[in-house]
Protein backbone atom coordinates (compact mmCIF):
# COMPACT_ATOMS: atom_id res chain seq x y z
CA UNK A 1 0.00 0.00 0.00
CA UNK A 2 1.19 3.45 -0.93
CA UNK A 3 1.28 5.68 2.13
CA UNK A 4 2.66 8.86 0.45
CA UNK A 5 0.29 10.71 -1.87
CA UNK A 6 1.45 11.49 -5.36
CA UNK A 7 1.61 15.22 -4.72
CA UNK A 8 4.59 14.65 -2.43
CA UNK A 9 6.73 13.94 -5.46
CA UNK A 10 7.19 17.71 -5.75
CA UNK A 11 8.49 17.96 -2.19
CA UNK A 12 12.22 18.01 -3.06
CA UNK A 13 11.67 20.74 -5.62
CA UNK A 14 9.49 22.84 -3.32
CA UNK A 15 11.96 22.38 -0.48
CA UNK A 16 14.88 23.41 -2.67
CA UNK A 17 13.10 26.56 -3.87
CA UNK A 18 11.90 27.32 -0.35
CA UNK A 19 15.38 27.03 1.15
CA UNK A 20 16.85 29.15 -1.62
CA UNK A 21 14.24 31.89 -1.26
CA UNK A 22 14.27 31.91 2.53
CA UNK A 23 18.06 31.72 2.74
CA UNK A 24 18.48 34.35 0.08
CA UNK A 25 15.93 36.57 1.76
CA UNK A 26 17.62 36.19 5.09
CA UNK A 27 21.01 36.98 3.61
CA UNK A 28 19.72 40.00 1.76
CA UNK A 29 17.81 41.13 4.83
CA UNK A 30 20.85 41.00 7.05
CA UNK A 31 22.98 42.52 4.32
CA UNK A 32 20.68 45.50 4.04
CA UNK A 33 19.14 45.99 7.45
CA UNK A 34 22.22 45.29 9.55
CA UNK A 35 24.38 47.71 7.58
CA UNK A 36 25.43 51.09 9.02
CA UNK A 37 23.02 52.72 6.60
CA UNK A 38 20.25 51.26 8.73
CA UNK A 39 21.83 50.90 12.14
CA UNK A 40 23.64 54.22 12.26
CA UNK A 41 21.70 56.69 10.19
CA UNK A 42 18.89 58.32 12.08
CA UNK A 43 20.41 57.88 15.52
CA UNK A 44 19.05 60.82 17.47
CA UNK A 45 19.57 60.34 21.19
CA UNK A 46 17.90 62.56 23.72
CA UNK A 47 20.25 65.25 24.97
CA UNK A 48 20.42 66.57 28.55
CA UNK A 49 19.39 69.98 27.22
CA UNK A 50 16.85 70.06 24.35
CA UNK A 51 19.18 72.22 22.28
CA UNK A 52 17.76 73.04 18.88
CA UNK A 53 20.14 73.46 15.96
CA UNK A 54 17.10 74.40 13.90
CA UNK A 55 16.57 77.44 16.09
CA UNK A 56 20.18 78.49 16.62
CA UNK A 57 21.84 77.63 13.31
CA UNK A 58 18.74 77.79 11.12
CA UNK A 59 16.44 80.57 12.26
CA UNK A 60 18.96 82.71 14.17
CA UNK A 61 21.67 82.00 11.60
CA UNK A 62 24.56 81.57 14.03
CA UNK A 63 27.61 80.30 12.14
CA UNK A 64 28.69 76.73 13.02
CA UNK A 65 32.11 78.03 14.04
CA UNK A 66 30.69 80.33 16.69
CA UNK A 67 30.26 77.29 18.96
CA UNK A 68 32.40 74.64 17.25
CA UNK A 69 35.13 77.22 17.29
CA UNK A 70 38.25 75.11 16.85
CA UNK A 71 36.95 73.15 13.89
CA UNK A 72 39.44 74.62 11.44
CA UNK A 73 42.42 74.05 13.74
CA UNK A 74 41.77 70.66 15.35
CA UNK A 75 40.94 67.11 14.44
CA UNK A 76 38.07 67.26 16.85
CA UNK A 77 35.02 69.52 16.59
CA UNK A 78 34.65 70.80 20.08
CA UNK A 79 31.32 70.84 21.80
CA UNK A 80 31.20 74.36 23.20
CA UNK A 81 31.97 74.91 26.86
CA UNK A 82 29.10 75.97 29.12
CA UNK A 83 30.74 79.37 29.05
CA UNK A 84 29.91 79.79 25.35
CA UNK A 85 26.20 79.09 25.98
CA UNK A 86 26.14 81.45 28.94
CA UNK A 87 27.51 84.19 26.71
CA UNK A 88 23.92 84.65 25.53
CA UNK A 89 21.88 82.75 28.06
CA UNK A 90 23.08 84.79 30.98
CA UNK A 91 20.74 87.38 29.45
CA UNK A 92 18.46 85.53 27.02
CA UNK A 93 15.88 83.08 28.41
CA UNK A 94 17.83 82.99 31.61
CA UNK A 95 15.02 81.44 33.64
CA UNK A 96 13.88 78.86 31.11
CA UNK A 97 13.33 75.46 32.78
CA UNK A 98 14.84 73.80 29.69
CA UNK A 99 18.18 75.36 30.56
CA UNK A 100 18.29 74.06 34.13
CA UNK A 101 21.09 71.63 33.29
CA UNK A 102 23.10 74.46 31.71
CA UNK A 103 22.77 76.68 34.75
CA UNK A 104 23.67 73.78 37.01
CA UNK A 105 26.83 73.20 34.99
CA UNK A 106 27.73 76.88 35.14
CA UNK A 107 27.33 77.06 38.90
CA UNK A 108 29.07 73.77 39.72
CA UNK A 109 31.73 73.80 37.02
CA UNK A 110 30.79 70.22 36.10
CA UNK A 111 30.31 69.68 32.35
CA UNK A 112 26.99 69.14 30.64
CA UNK A 113 26.92 65.46 29.67
CA UNK A 114 26.02 65.60 25.99
CA UNK A 115 25.41 62.32 24.22
CA UNK A 116 27.66 61.64 21.25
CA UNK A 117 25.81 61.34 17.96
CA UNK A 118 28.49 61.00 15.30
CA UNK A 119 31.13 58.43 16.02
CA UNK A 120 33.73 56.63 13.98
CA UNK A 121 35.51 53.61 15.42
CA UNK A 122 38.61 54.14 17.53
CA UNK A 123 40.77 52.59 14.83
CA UNK A 124 39.85 55.31 12.38
CA UNK A 125 41.83 58.51 12.25
CA UNK A 126 39.60 61.39 11.33
CA UNK A 127 40.58 65.03 11.26
CA UNK A 128 37.96 67.75 10.85
CA UNK A 129 40.43 70.51 10.06
CA UNK A 130 41.90 68.66 7.09
CA UNK A 131 38.49 68.12 5.53
CA UNK A 132 37.53 71.76 5.95
CA UNK A 133 40.84 72.89 4.52
CA UNK A 134 40.16 70.72 1.46
CA UNK A 135 36.78 72.37 1.01
CA UNK A 136 34.33 69.74 2.25
CA UNK A 137 31.31 71.50 3.68
CA UNK A 138 29.63 70.62 6.99
CA UNK A 139 26.44 69.65 5.21
CA UNK A 140 28.15 66.89 3.19
CA UNK A 141 28.61 64.66 6.24
CA UNK A 142 26.22 66.09 8.81
CA UNK A 143 23.21 66.83 6.62
CA UNK A 144 20.86 69.75 7.13
CA UNK A 145 21.76 70.41 10.73
CA UNK A 146 20.02 73.76 10.41
CA UNK A 147 16.71 71.93 10.03
CA UNK A 148 17.17 69.47 12.87
CA UNK A 149 15.30 70.04 16.09
CA UNK A 150 17.24 67.12 17.57
CA UNK A 151 20.58 66.27 15.97
CA UNK A 152 20.53 62.94 14.24
CA UNK A 153 23.07 61.10 12.16
CA UNK A 154 22.47 61.81 8.50
CA UNK A 155 25.11 59.69 6.77
CA UNK A 156 26.30 56.14 7.56
CA UNK A 157 29.92 57.16 8.26
CA UNK A 158 31.11 53.68 7.26
CA UNK A 159 34.21 52.89 5.28
CA UNK A 160 32.53 52.49 1.91
CA UNK A 161 30.89 55.85 2.34
CA UNK A 162 34.20 57.50 3.23
CA UNK A 163 35.96 55.94 0.26
CA UNK A 164 33.26 57.02 -2.17
CA UNK A 165 34.19 60.61 -1.51
CA UNK A 166 37.93 60.00 -1.20
CA UNK A 167 37.87 58.54 -4.72
CA UNK A 168 35.80 61.33 -6.20
CA UNK A 169 35.51 64.31 -3.88
CA UNK A 170 34.40 66.70 -6.63
CA UNK A 171 30.65 66.72 -5.88
CA UNK A 172 31.30 67.45 -2.20
CA UNK A 173 33.80 70.28 -2.62
CA UNK A 174 33.01 73.97 -2.42
CA UNK A 175 34.82 77.29 -2.05
CA UNK A 176 36.37 77.72 1.39
CA UNK A 177 34.16 80.66 2.27
CA UNK A 178 31.02 78.54 1.79
CA UNK A 179 32.08 75.72 4.14
CA UNK A 180 29.35 76.30 6.72
CA UNK A 181 26.68 77.32 4.24
CA UNK A 182 23.95 74.65 4.35
CA UNK A 183 22.21 75.72 1.15
CA UNK A 184 25.08 76.47 -1.18
CA UNK A 185 24.69 75.26 -4.76
CA UNK A 186 27.46 75.71 -7.26
CA UNK A 187 27.04 78.00 -10.22
CA UNK A 188 27.78 76.58 -13.67
CA UNK A 189 31.29 78.07 -13.67
CA UNK A 190 32.01 76.70 -10.21
CA UNK A 191 30.68 73.31 -11.20
CA UNK A 192 33.12 72.99 -14.09
CA UNK A 193 35.94 74.35 -11.97
CA UNK A 194 35.29 71.81 -9.21
CA UNK A 195 34.89 69.00 -11.71
CA UNK A 196 38.43 69.68 -12.89
CA UNK A 197 39.86 69.35 -9.42
CA UNK A 198 42.46 66.64 -9.05
CA UNK A 199 42.33 66.53 -5.27
CA UNK A 200 41.86 63.01 -3.86
CA UNK A 201 41.55 61.80 -0.32
CA UNK A 202 43.98 59.06 0.72
CA UNK A 203 42.78 55.62 -0.37
CA UNK A 204 45.54 53.50 1.13
CA UNK A 205 44.82 51.69 4.40
CA UNK A 206 47.14 53.73 6.58
CA UNK A 207 45.59 56.99 5.43
CA UNK A 208 42.88 56.48 8.02
CA UNK A 209 43.95 53.35 9.94
CA UNK A 210 47.17 54.81 11.24
Amino acid sequence: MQIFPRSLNYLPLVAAIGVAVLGGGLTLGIWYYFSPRNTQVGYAPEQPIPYSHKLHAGELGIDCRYCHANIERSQEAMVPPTQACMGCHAVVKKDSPKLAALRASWSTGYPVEWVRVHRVADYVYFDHSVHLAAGVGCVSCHGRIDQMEVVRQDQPLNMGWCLECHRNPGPNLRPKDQITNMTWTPSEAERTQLAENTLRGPQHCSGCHR
Partner: protein
Amino acid sequence: MSTENETARSGQKMLWRSLDQKADPAKVQEAQCGSDVVKRNIDQSELFTINRRKFLTLSGAIGTLAGVEGCIRRPAENIMPYADMPEYVNPGVPMHYATVTTSSGEALGLVVTSYEGRPTKVEGNPDHPASLGATDIWAQSAILDLYDTERSRQPHQAGVATDFATFDKAFDAKIAELVKKGGAGLAILTQSTLSPSYVRVRELLLKRLPRAAFFTYSPVNSGNARLGALAAFGQPLLPIHDFSKAKVIVALDSDFLGTEPGNVQAARGFAQGRNVSGVTSEMNRLYAVEPAYTNTGSNADHRLRLSGQDVARYAKALAAELGANGVDLGQLSTAVAGTNTDGIPAPWLKVVAKELVQNRGQSLIVVGQRQPAAVHALAASLNRALGNLDRTVAYATPIDTLEGDGYAAISALSKQMATGAIDTLIMLGGNLSTTHRRT
Protein backbone atom coordinates in the same frame (compact mmCIF):
# COMPACT_ATOMS: atom_id res chain seq x y z
CA MET B 1 49.50 62.58 53.89
CA SER B 2 48.20 59.53 52.13
CA THR B 3 44.85 57.98 52.80
CA GLU B 4 45.16 54.54 54.24
CA ASN B 5 43.55 51.96 52.07
CA GLU B 6 41.54 48.98 53.09
CA THR B 7 44.55 46.70 53.04
CA ALA B 8 46.24 48.49 55.84
CA ARG B 9 43.10 48.61 57.94
CA SER B 10 41.98 45.03 57.72
CA GLY B 11 45.47 43.57 57.55
CA GLN B 12 44.34 41.23 54.79
CA LYS B 13 45.97 40.99 51.43
CA MET B 14 43.80 42.68 48.86
CA LEU B 15 44.25 42.00 45.17
CA TRP B 16 42.89 44.53 42.73
CA ARG B 17 42.83 44.99 39.01
CA SER B 18 41.87 48.63 38.61
CA LEU B 19 42.14 51.76 40.70
CA ASP B 20 38.35 51.73 41.02
CA GLN B 21 38.53 48.35 42.68
CA LYS B 22 41.32 49.50 44.95
CA ALA B 23 39.33 52.52 46.07
CA ASP B 24 36.19 50.45 46.70
CA PRO B 25 37.03 47.06 48.22
CA ALA B 26 33.42 45.89 47.85
CA LYS B 27 34.00 45.73 44.12
CA VAL B 28 36.98 43.45 44.57
CA GLN B 29 34.88 41.09 46.59
CA GLU B 30 32.20 41.10 43.93
CA ALA B 31 34.78 40.42 41.22
CA GLN B 32 36.20 37.54 43.21
CA CYS B 33 32.90 35.92 44.10
CA GLY B 34 30.94 36.69 40.95
CA SER B 35 27.63 38.48 40.81
CA ASP B 36 24.59 37.64 42.93
CA VAL B 37 23.13 35.47 40.20
CA VAL B 38 26.13 33.18 40.04
CA LYS B 39 26.48 33.04 43.77
CA ARG B 40 23.02 31.55 44.17
CA ASN B 41 23.02 27.79 44.23
CA ILE B 42 22.09 26.51 40.83
CA ASP B 43 21.10 22.94 40.31
CA GLN B 44 23.39 21.92 37.48
CA SER B 45 21.18 19.07 36.25
CA GLU B 46 18.39 21.58 35.69
CA LEU B 47 20.59 23.61 33.37
CA PHE B 48 21.31 20.85 30.92
CA THR B 49 17.98 19.06 30.66
CA ILE B 50 16.25 20.34 27.59
CA ASN B 51 12.71 19.52 26.60
CA ARG B 52 10.88 20.64 23.50
CA ARG B 53 9.23 23.63 25.16
CA LYS B 54 12.53 24.87 26.55
CA PHE B 55 14.28 24.38 23.22
CA LEU B 56 11.67 26.46 21.38
CA THR B 57 11.77 29.17 24.05
CA LEU B 58 15.54 29.40 23.88
CA SER B 59 15.80 29.36 20.10
CA GLY B 60 13.09 32.01 19.87
CA ALA B 61 14.97 34.14 22.36
CA ILE B 62 18.23 33.69 20.48
CA GLY B 63 16.61 34.75 17.22
CA THR B 64 15.03 37.81 18.82
CA LEU B 65 18.27 38.80 20.51
CA ALA B 66 20.19 38.46 17.25
CA GLY B 67 17.73 40.86 15.67
CA VAL B 68 17.84 43.28 18.57
CA GLU B 69 21.62 43.23 18.52
CA GLY B 70 21.58 44.67 15.02
CA CYS B 71 19.18 47.43 15.94
CA ILE B 72 20.89 48.59 19.11
CA ARG B 73 23.29 51.14 17.81
CA ARG B 74 25.87 51.11 20.56
CA PRO B 75 26.16 52.11 24.18
CA ALA B 76 25.55 55.83 24.54
CA GLU B 77 28.77 57.74 24.87
CA ASN B 78 29.04 61.13 26.48
CA ILE B 79 30.92 64.20 25.38
CA MET B 80 32.05 66.27 28.32
CA PRO B 81 33.10 69.73 27.22
CA TYR B 82 34.65 72.24 29.56
CA ALA B 83 32.28 74.21 31.72
CA ASP B 84 34.67 77.15 31.71
CA MET B 85 37.32 76.66 29.06
CA PRO B 86 40.80 77.99 29.82
CA GLU B 87 42.32 80.34 27.31
CA TYR B 88 44.50 78.91 24.53
CA VAL B 89 43.07 75.41 24.86
CA ASN B 90 42.23 73.84 21.52
CA PRO B 91 40.35 70.58 22.19
CA GLY B 92 41.90 67.73 20.23
CA VAL B 93 45.27 69.41 19.83
CA PRO B 94 47.79 68.84 22.62
CA MET B 95 49.57 71.65 24.45
CA HIS B 96 53.25 71.34 25.30
CA TYR B 97 54.53 72.78 28.53
CA ALA B 98 58.14 73.36 29.46
CA THR B 99 58.74 72.45 33.07
CA VAL B 100 61.42 71.17 35.40
CA THR B 101 61.57 68.26 37.80
CA THR B 102 64.07 67.92 40.57
CA SER B 103 65.15 64.53 41.76
CA SER B 104 68.22 63.19 43.51
CA GLY B 105 70.11 66.46 43.37
CA GLU B 106 69.55 67.58 39.82
CA ALA B 107 67.04 69.63 37.93
CA LEU B 108 65.89 68.21 34.62
CA GLY B 109 64.13 70.30 32.00
CA LEU B 110 61.08 68.60 30.50
CA VAL B 111 58.39 69.13 27.93
CA VAL B 112 55.03 67.68 28.92
CA THR B 113 52.31 66.90 26.39
CA SER B 114 48.85 67.64 27.67
CA TYR B 115 45.42 67.05 26.11
CA GLU B 116 42.72 69.33 27.50
CA GLY B 117 44.51 69.59 30.81
CA ARG B 118 45.39 65.89 30.99
CA PRO B 119 49.14 65.30 30.74
CA THR B 120 49.98 62.19 28.75
CA LYS B 121 53.70 62.18 28.03
CA VAL B 122 56.95 63.51 29.41
CA GLU B 123 59.93 64.18 27.19
CA GLY B 124 63.21 66.02 27.64
CA ASN B 125 63.56 69.68 26.80
CA PRO B 126 66.18 70.05 24.03
CA ASP B 127 66.95 73.60 25.19
CA HIS B 128 67.70 72.59 28.78
CA PRO B 129 71.40 71.94 29.46
CA ALA B 130 70.79 69.04 31.85
CA SER B 131 68.34 67.31 29.55
CA LEU B 132 69.35 68.09 25.95
CA GLY B 133 66.11 66.46 24.88
CA ALA B 134 66.49 63.28 26.90
CA THR B 135 65.08 62.09 30.21
CA ASP B 136 65.76 59.44 32.81
CA ILE B 137 63.49 56.79 34.30
CA TRP B 138 62.25 59.06 37.09
CA ALA B 139 61.21 61.77 34.70
CA GLN B 140 59.39 59.24 32.55
CA SER B 141 57.51 57.88 35.54
CA ALA B 142 56.73 61.37 36.85
CA ILE B 143 53.58 61.27 34.72
CA LEU B 144 52.13 58.64 37.06
CA ASP B 145 52.54 60.96 40.04
CA LEU B 146 50.03 63.29 38.46
CA TYR B 147 47.35 60.58 38.53
CA ASP B 148 48.23 59.19 41.95
CA THR B 149 44.93 58.52 43.71
CA GLU B 150 46.72 58.58 47.05
CA ARG B 151 47.68 62.22 46.62
CA SER B 152 46.27 64.34 49.36
CA ARG B 153 43.50 66.62 48.14
CA GLN B 154 42.81 68.59 51.28
CA PRO B 155 44.33 69.21 54.69
CA HIS B 156 43.81 66.57 57.36
CA GLN B 157 43.58 67.04 61.07
CA ALA B 158 44.35 64.01 63.23
CA GLY B 159 43.64 61.80 60.22
CA VAL B 160 40.31 63.46 59.44
CA ALA B 161 39.87 65.52 56.27
CA THR B 162 39.24 69.20 56.84
CA ASP B 163 39.39 72.35 54.74
CA PHE B 164 41.97 75.06 54.11
CA ALA B 165 40.12 77.68 56.13
CA THR B 166 40.45 75.53 59.25
CA PHE B 167 44.07 74.80 58.43
CA ASP B 168 44.90 78.47 57.91
CA LYS B 169 43.28 79.41 61.19
CA ALA B 170 45.17 76.78 63.16
CA PHE B 171 48.42 77.53 61.34
CA ASP B 172 48.18 81.29 61.90
CA ALA B 173 47.53 80.78 65.59
CA LYS B 174 50.53 78.47 65.86
CA ILE B 175 52.81 80.88 63.99
CA ALA B 176 51.74 83.81 66.18
CA GLU B 177 52.62 81.75 69.21
CA LEU B 178 56.02 80.79 67.72
CA VAL B 179 56.88 84.38 66.77
CA LYS B 180 56.42 85.38 70.42
CA LYS B 181 59.02 82.77 71.42
CA GLY B 182 61.36 83.68 68.58
CA GLY B 183 60.79 80.28 67.06
CA ALA B 184 61.99 78.28 70.04
CA GLY B 185 60.82 74.68 69.88
CA LEU B 186 60.22 74.85 66.12
CA ALA B 187 61.97 72.42 63.78
CA ILE B 188 61.57 72.51 60.03
CA LEU B 189 62.50 69.34 58.19
CA THR B 190 63.10 69.71 54.47
CA GLN B 191 64.53 67.73 51.63
CA SER B 192 67.68 68.63 49.72
CA THR B 193 66.94 71.63 47.59
CA LEU B 194 68.16 73.12 44.34
CA SER B 195 66.15 76.28 44.76
CA PRO B 196 67.89 79.61 45.44
CA SER B 197 64.47 81.05 46.27
CA TYR B 198 63.98 78.50 49.01
CA VAL B 199 67.40 79.33 50.48
CA ARG B 200 66.56 83.03 50.47
CA VAL B 201 63.19 82.47 52.14
CA ARG B 202 64.87 80.33 54.76
CA GLU B 203 67.25 83.19 55.58
CA LEU B 204 64.32 85.58 55.92
CA LEU B 205 62.53 83.11 58.17
CA LEU B 206 65.57 82.71 60.38
CA LYS B 207 65.71 86.48 60.82
CA ARG B 208 62.12 86.45 62.03
CA LEU B 209 62.42 83.24 64.06
CA PRO B 210 66.10 83.10 65.03
CA ARG B 211 65.66 80.16 67.40
CA ALA B 212 64.01 77.87 64.87
CA ALA B 213 66.05 74.90 63.68
CA PHE B 214 66.28 73.64 60.11
CA PHE B 215 67.07 70.03 59.26
CA THR B 216 67.73 68.77 55.75
CA TYR B 217 67.33 65.11 54.95
CA SER B 218 66.92 63.23 51.69
CA PRO B 219 67.36 59.47 51.49
CA VAL B 220 69.53 59.97 48.40
CA ASN B 221 71.84 62.92 48.96
CA SER B 222 75.19 64.36 48.07
CA GLY B 223 76.43 64.51 51.67
CA ASN B 224 79.43 62.26 51.07
CA ALA B 225 80.56 64.22 48.04
CA ARG B 226 80.30 67.50 49.96
CA LEU B 227 82.24 66.15 52.92
CA GLY B 228 84.84 64.70 50.55
CA ALA B 229 85.31 68.07 48.88
CA LEU B 230 85.51 69.68 52.31
CA ALA B 231 88.43 67.38 53.14
CA ALA B 232 90.14 67.93 49.78
CA PHE B 233 89.52 71.64 49.17
CA GLY B 234 88.49 73.00 52.54
CA GLN B 235 84.94 73.83 51.51
CA PRO B 236 81.81 71.83 50.67
CA LEU B 237 81.68 71.66 46.89
CA LEU B 238 79.99 69.42 44.37
CA PRO B 239 81.72 67.94 41.33
CA ILE B 240 80.43 68.66 37.84
CA HIS B 241 81.74 66.19 35.30
CA ASP B 242 82.29 66.65 31.60
CA PHE B 243 82.44 63.13 30.22
CA SER B 244 82.73 64.29 26.61
CA LYS B 245 86.31 65.48 27.25
CA ALA B 246 87.48 62.39 29.13
CA LYS B 247 89.54 59.79 27.28
CA VAL B 248 89.89 57.48 30.26
CA ILE B 249 87.14 57.21 32.86
CA VAL B 250 87.43 55.27 36.11
CA ALA B 251 84.05 54.86 37.81
CA LEU B 252 84.31 53.86 41.47
CA ASP B 253 80.93 52.44 42.48
CA SER B 254 79.38 55.19 40.38
CA ASP B 255 76.42 54.49 38.14
CA PHE B 256 76.82 57.81 36.38
CA LEU B 257 74.96 56.50 33.33
CA GLY B 258 71.97 55.28 35.31
CA THR B 259 71.21 56.58 38.76
CA GLU B 260 73.67 59.30 39.77
CA PRO B 261 72.60 62.95 39.54
CA GLY B 262 73.25 64.39 36.10
CA ASN B 263 73.02 60.98 34.42
CA VAL B 264 71.11 62.30 31.40
CA GLN B 265 73.81 64.81 30.57
CA ALA B 266 76.53 62.30 31.49
CA ALA B 267 75.13 59.72 29.09
CA ARG B 268 75.18 62.26 26.30
CA GLY B 269 78.78 63.29 27.07
CA PHE B 270 79.90 59.69 27.39
CA ALA B 271 78.30 58.83 24.05
CA GLN B 272 80.07 61.77 22.42
CA GLY B 273 83.36 60.35 23.66
CA ARG B 274 82.43 56.99 22.13
CA ASN B 275 81.50 58.43 18.78
CA VAL B 276 83.99 57.31 16.18
CA SER B 277 83.42 59.67 13.30
CA GLY B 278 86.64 59.41 11.34
CA VAL B 279 89.92 57.59 10.89
CA THR B 280 91.72 59.64 13.51
CA SER B 281 89.00 59.80 16.17
CA GLU B 282 89.40 57.65 19.23
CA MET B 283 86.94 56.09 21.60
CA ASN B 284 87.07 56.81 25.30
CA ARG B 285 87.68 53.94 27.68
CA LEU B 286 85.60 53.21 30.73
CA TYR B 287 86.77 51.20 33.73
CA ALA B 288 84.04 50.39 36.22
CA VAL B 289 84.70 49.11 39.73
CA GLU B 290 81.43 48.25 41.38
CA PRO B 291 79.72 45.90 43.83
CA ALA B 292 76.47 45.54 41.85
CA TYR B 293 75.74 45.27 38.17
CA THR B 294 74.69 48.67 36.87
CA ASN B 295 74.00 50.42 33.63
CA THR B 296 77.48 51.90 33.83
CA GLY B 297 79.09 48.53 34.46
CA SER B 298 77.33 47.05 31.46
CA ASN B 299 78.67 49.88 29.28
CA ALA B 300 82.19 49.62 30.66
CA ASP B 301 85.09 48.33 28.57
CA HIS B 302 86.42 46.63 31.69
CA ARG B 303 84.46 45.87 34.80
CA LEU B 304 85.89 44.81 38.14
CA ARG B 305 83.53 43.23 40.63
CA LEU B 306 84.52 44.38 44.07
CA SER B 307 82.49 44.61 47.26
CA GLY B 308 81.38 48.09 48.28
CA GLN B 309 83.77 48.34 51.20
CA ASP B 310 86.73 47.29 49.02
CA VAL B 311 86.20 50.14 46.55
CA ALA B 312 87.99 52.48 48.97
CA ARG B 313 90.89 50.03 49.15
CA TYR B 314 91.07 49.94 45.36
CA ALA B 315 91.11 53.75 45.22
CA LYS B 316 94.02 53.85 47.66
CA ALA B 317 95.93 51.16 45.78
CA LEU B 318 95.36 53.02 42.52
CA ALA B 319 96.62 56.22 44.14
CA ALA B 320 99.76 54.43 45.29
CA GLU B 321 100.29 53.04 41.79
CA LEU B 322 99.83 56.52 40.30
CA GLY B 323 102.45 57.80 42.76
CA ALA B 324 104.80 55.09 41.53
CA ASN B 325 104.12 56.29 37.97
CA GLY B 326 105.34 59.77 38.74
CA VAL B 327 102.14 61.56 39.75
CA ASP B 328 102.83 64.07 42.51
CA LEU B 329 100.53 63.06 45.36
CA GLY B 330 102.03 65.33 48.03
CA GLN B 331 101.09 64.30 51.54
CA LEU B 332 98.77 61.61 50.24
CA SER B 333 101.64 59.36 49.19
CA THR B 334 102.35 58.30 52.78
CA ALA B 335 98.67 57.68 53.53
CA VAL B 336 98.18 55.34 50.58
CA ALA B 337 101.57 53.60 50.71
CA GLY B 338 101.47 49.87 51.31
CA THR B 339 97.75 49.41 50.65
CA ASN B 340 96.67 45.79 50.67
CA THR B 341 95.92 44.74 47.07
CA ASP B 342 94.37 41.33 47.78
CA GLY B 343 91.69 40.44 45.29
CA ILE B 344 92.59 43.24 42.89
CA PRO B 345 94.05 41.92 39.61
CA ALA B 346 97.44 43.51 38.87
CA PRO B 347 96.40 45.02 35.47
CA TRP B 348 93.60 46.90 37.22
CA LEU B 349 96.32 48.92 38.97
CA LYS B 350 99.24 48.90 36.53
CA VAL B 351 97.36 49.39 33.24
CA VAL B 352 94.75 51.75 34.63
CA ALA B 353 97.39 53.91 36.31
CA LYS B 354 99.47 53.97 33.14
CA GLU B 355 96.51 55.07 31.02
CA LEU B 356 95.52 57.74 33.52
CA VAL B 357 99.05 59.12 33.47
CA GLN B 358 99.18 59.03 29.67
CA ASN B 359 95.94 61.02 29.54
CA ARG B 360 96.66 63.74 32.09
CA GLY B 361 94.01 66.41 31.81
CA GLN B 362 91.85 64.09 29.74
CA SER B 363 91.06 61.47 32.34
CA LEU B 364 88.40 61.34 35.00
CA ILE B 365 87.84 59.48 38.24
CA VAL B 366 84.20 59.53 39.38
CA VAL B 367 82.88 58.26 42.70
CA GLY B 368 79.32 57.18 43.47
CA GLN B 369 77.27 59.03 46.08
CA ARG B 370 77.06 56.05 48.38
CA GLN B 371 80.84 55.75 48.75
CA PRO B 372 82.16 57.33 51.96
CA ALA B 373 83.54 60.87 52.03
CA ALA B 374 87.15 59.59 52.16
CA VAL B 375 86.84 58.05 48.68
CA HIS B 376 85.36 61.29 47.32
CA ALA B 377 88.24 63.23 48.88
CA LEU B 378 90.81 60.83 47.42
CA ALA B 379 89.25 61.01 43.94
CA ALA B 380 89.21 64.81 44.11
CA SER B 381 92.91 64.85 45.03
CA LEU B 382 93.77 62.37 42.26
CA ASN B 383 91.82 64.37 39.67
CA ARG B 384 93.71 67.46 40.79
CA ALA B 385 97.07 65.66 40.67
CA LEU B 386 96.26 64.37 37.17
CA GLY B 387 95.49 67.90 35.98
CA ASN B 388 91.82 67.14 35.35
CA LEU B 389 90.47 70.04 37.38
CA ASP B 390 88.47 72.47 35.24
CA ARG B 391 88.99 70.17 32.26
CA THR B 392 86.96 67.02 32.86
CA VAL B 393 85.74 67.92 36.32
CA ALA B 394 84.92 71.23 37.94
CA TYR B 395 83.82 71.91 41.48
CA ALA B 396 80.96 74.28 42.20
CA THR B 397 79.41 75.69 45.33
CA PRO B 398 76.11 73.93 46.00
CA ILE B 399 72.98 76.05 46.12
CA ASP B 400 72.21 75.05 49.68
CA THR B 401 75.55 75.45 51.43
CA LEU B 402 74.07 74.58 54.83
CA GLU B 403 73.08 71.05 53.85
CA GLY B 404 75.39 68.64 55.58
CA ASP B 405 75.19 64.98 56.40
CA GLY B 406 71.48 64.14 56.10
CA TYR B 407 71.73 61.04 58.31
CA ALA B 408 73.34 63.07 61.09
CA ALA B 409 70.62 65.69 60.69
CA ILE B 410 67.79 63.21 61.02
CA SER B 411 69.22 61.54 64.11
CA ALA B 412 69.90 64.93 65.72
CA LEU B 413 66.29 65.85 65.07
CA SER B 414 64.89 62.66 66.58
CA LYS B 415 67.09 63.08 69.66
CA GLN B 416 65.91 66.64 70.19
CA MET B 417 62.32 65.57 69.73
CA ALA B 418 62.77 62.81 72.29
CA THR B 419 64.09 65.26 74.88
CA GLY B 420 61.17 67.58 74.29
CA ALA B 421 63.35 70.46 73.08
CA ILE B 422 61.23 70.53 69.94
CA ASP B 423 57.47 70.72 70.22
CA THR B 424 56.54 71.80 66.70
CA LEU B 425 57.69 70.03 63.55
CA ILE B 426 57.00 71.30 60.06
CA MET B 427 57.87 68.86 57.28
CA LEU B 428 58.20 70.24 53.78
CA GLY B 429 58.01 67.25 51.43
CA GLY B 430 59.46 63.82 51.98
CA ASN B 431 57.93 60.72 53.43
CA LEU B 432 59.99 59.51 56.36
CA SER B 433 57.85 56.45 56.92
CA THR B 434 59.22 54.99 53.69
CA THR B 435 62.60 56.70 53.31
CA HIS B 436 64.02 56.48 56.79
CA ARG B 437 64.89 53.35 58.70
CA ARG B 438 63.63 53.42 62.24
CA THR B 439 66.41 52.61 64.68
